[in-house]
């Protein structure tokens, strides 16, 4: 199977769906002539032309709202946010209009839109550019939220997201764009709402998603080699819908849980998952559920200290050993 980067996997999904459906159009800042701020859309303008690949002004509320309106009439826009952090200036359009229009119309109107872009810290760009809003987005019934960790997942999930008739928020990661993984040449889809056990284990369940999956897999190796602890790593992949069953199956096997997220802890994804585990698998637990989040402050700029603010292999290992103590 060929190895391609996460960036290329996203691009291939976009290209395939543009070819698959004439209503699919990509809009965003610098997606065309500039070839994408992170080169995700590189070459697409040349190949598919300006009707399908549309450069927008820096005007997120305007162009995202415009995409929502166009989707009501059957266009299937894929809107690129240069950073998901910029969602705040389009908050009303995303979380009032896209999220609510089906409900408020009593089911008469659909909003088949995908909003995608990177949402991560760790790049020394300070608090304004380092938001990870998957918990905020998932707090709004009406939208779906996806956070892929690998090239394979990114491609299969994005294709499903584009074909979905509900608004899907697709959160990528600038630090994953260059990471390569095996991706089949033949077409495949991954359904939203399906977690993936990225590593099997028997002693500890690490529930995680996004870039923290890669750190957790590294830590699982260390736990095996240096501590004789067998850790299972469950990648949620999708936050809403959420595959809690795969998590509960793993918990029933290991009886100990660490949840790792690149999120501020208050009302985070881990908080929700921990609530559900204690509610539905209380008797399976041999230790309190532990949650490892970003250290609770705006994203710090200072490069070596930002690494410590985020979940990293060292912090994850320490947290895992606490759960096992």
């Amino acid at each position, binding site marked *: 199977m060929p190895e391609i980067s996460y960036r290329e996997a996203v691009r291939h999904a976009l290209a395939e769906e543009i070819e698959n459906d004439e209503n699919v159009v990509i809009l965003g800042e610098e997606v065309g002539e500039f070839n994408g701020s992170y080169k995700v859309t590189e070459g697409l303008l040349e190949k598919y032309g300006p009707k399908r690949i549309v450069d927008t002004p820096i005007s997120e509320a305007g162009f995202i709202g415009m995409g929502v309106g166009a989707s009501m009439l059957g266009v299937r826009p894929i809107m690129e946010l240069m950073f998901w952090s910029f969602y705040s200036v389009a908050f009303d359009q995303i979380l009032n209009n896209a999220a609510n229009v089906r409900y408020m119309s009593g089911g008469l109107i659909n909003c088949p839109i995908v909003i995608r872009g990177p949402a991560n810290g760790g790049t020394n760009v300070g608090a304004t550019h380092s938001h990870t809003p998957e918990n905020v987005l998932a707090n709004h019934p009406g939208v779906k939220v996806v956070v892929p960790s690998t090239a394979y997942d990114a491609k299969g999930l994005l294709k499903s997201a584009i074909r979905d008739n509900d608004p899907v928020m697709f959160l990528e990661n600038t630090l994953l764009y260059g990471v390569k993984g095996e991706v089949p040449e033949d077409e495949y889809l991954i359904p939203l709402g399906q977690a993936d056990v990225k590593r099997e284990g028997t002693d500890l369940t690490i529930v995680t998603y996004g870039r923290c999956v890669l750190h957790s897999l590294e830590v699982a190796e260390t736990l095996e080699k240096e501590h004789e602890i067998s850790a299972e790593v469950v990648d949620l992949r999708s936050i*809403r819908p959420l595959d809690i069953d795969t998590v509960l199956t793993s918990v029933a096997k290991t009886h100990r849980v660490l949840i790792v997220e690149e999120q501020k802890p208050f009302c985070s994804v881990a908080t929700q998952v921990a609530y559900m585990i204690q509610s539905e698998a209380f008797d399976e637990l041999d230790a309190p559920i532990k949650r490892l989040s970003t250290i609770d402050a705006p994203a710090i700029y200072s490069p070596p200290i930002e690494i410590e603010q985020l979940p990293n292999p060292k912090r994850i290992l320490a947290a895992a050993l606490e759960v096992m103590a």
Partner: protein
Amino acid sequence: MSKTSTKSADTAKAAINKDLSKEEKQEFLRTMMRIRRFEERSLRAYQGKKIGGFMHAYIGQEAVAVGCCSLMGENDHAITTYRDHGHAIAVGMGMNEQMAELYGKATGCSKGKGGSMHFFAPDLNFWGGHGIVGGQIPLGTGLAYALKYKGLKGASMAFLGDGAVNQGAVHESYNLASLWKLPVVFVIENNGYSMGTSQARSSAGELSQRAAGYDMTWDACDGHDVYAVREIMDKHLTLAREKCEPSVVEVRTYRYRGHSVSDPDNTYRRKSDIEDYRKTKDPIQTFQRRLIEEGTLTEEEASTIDKAARAEADAAAEFAEASPWPTVEDIQKDVYWEVDNPSERKSTGRIFFN
């Protein structure tokens, strides 16, 4: 781009109006009366505690929605603010489903899930009904984008109030519409007050003239004359449909009631202002007088139309009263397309979290 300037001295003789049949003219009057009687009846129901939340009456502004929506063709679309009852009736929505929506009943146009501010009828090319000031304008721009993308010859009318002209989303939409030549007419229904703040205290300069900064055509007209509204809108809708040229039209109108039912309307304007307008410019009275003078309507016919409108509104209230409430089970329907279409669901996993 500049201000357009071809308003007729007698708007009845404008090209779009001069060949109107007696029936068509009476239909404009009937629709305006139906809006007014529907709203008067719904205000009574509100006072009787049959209706909750906010309700923003359109009374006084009827000629705007009726004039604009009377021009809609197969590929023309409309989207508006929370003051949406008038547009809903003007595009052809029935009183029953609207009144039932106000009552919060399952038979309402949004199954009791939207309320007064959120009426929709996509089958009639009416896309709401939006609660956040200016928030619907990017959506209206998107309707125009979709028309152009699909190669359909039509136009989007994106209605906003005078209070919305200072919202960023409106300006962003102006820019996108002009930049990409989208077939949209931004219709500012200027009723003089953004809630309780007069135009003079909230907005610098001429409202429609701001279009010039975005290289768009703009114009303004009286909103109490349905003929004038039709004349100016025909011109701008034609620009949109034929040339994909967006524009901004300011329609100067007036509302008789407070901003919403929660506004006692005794702080920011004089009662005599409202009375003066009602006596001299009321869109229904002036149009009725005009039709009678033209000889296309008799006093008796006017009375019949009015009685029928009142009876229709009363019947709608009875329909709403007799209709069932939505159920607690209905709360989680119409949230996700996939959940409502389980045989076609592709995703797995839990989607609700109670």
